[in-house]
């Protein structure tokens, strides 16, 4: 029973972070800031739900797969963010109130 509650909590929390990711992408002022939302909240939300899945099935095969999925997200989400961020910067997307360090412009644009 307690496990059910834990799972319910994880699921709700995960859903909440997912919602925040979506809302953040919608609301935040520029693309790089939006990426903070999608990368962090999205990954965390999915991760929580997957943990709930792992607990729910609790057989070795499913647990490994659920955990593998989490690991995979942790591994790829930041790389994806890096790719988009770099592309955004290079394609000179307007940034909201952003302080640019000297020389960063050239280095990043190449």
């Amino acid at each position, binding site marked *: *029973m307690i496990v059910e509650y834990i799972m319910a*909590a994880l699921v709700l929390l995960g859903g909440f972070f997912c919602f925040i*990711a979506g809302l953040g992408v919608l609301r935040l002022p520029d693309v790089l800031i939006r990426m903070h939302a999608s990368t962090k909240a999205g*990954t965390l939300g*999915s991760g929580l739900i997957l943990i709930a899945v792992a607990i729910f099935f609790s057989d070795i095969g499913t647990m490994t797969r659920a955990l593998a999925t989490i690991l995979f997200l942790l591994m790829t989400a930041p790389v994806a963010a890096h790719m988009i961020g770099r*592309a*955004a910067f290079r394609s000179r997307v307007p940034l909201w109130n952003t302080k640019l360090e000297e020389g960063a412009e050239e280095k990043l644009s190449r």
Partner: protein
Amino acid sequence: MSPVLSTALDIAFVLVMLGVVGGFVRLVKGPSLPDRVVALDMMTVLIVSFCGLYAILSGQTAFVDVAIVVAVIGFLATVALARYVERRQHRYDGSTPVTAPGAKKEPKT
């Protein structure tokens, strides 16, 4: 499945789908290409959640497999799109009409 978990799942579904809707609106609004890519990337991550929720709802581990595949390939799509954003902007700056390359060869970048 206890009513608690079942209710939590229903709520979570609504939350996840709302997140997806948020992403979709961003996708439509843009305004820049990277914005759209971010929206799409986030949506694929949310689909992972959706699959996880469905796995619990149906009691079928099969949907965990869907989740893992989504995690793998969502990344690939994002990388490809990011490259597109980066390269495209280099090639055609702004929206000035592009002369079709049928007649003469363009230098490779």
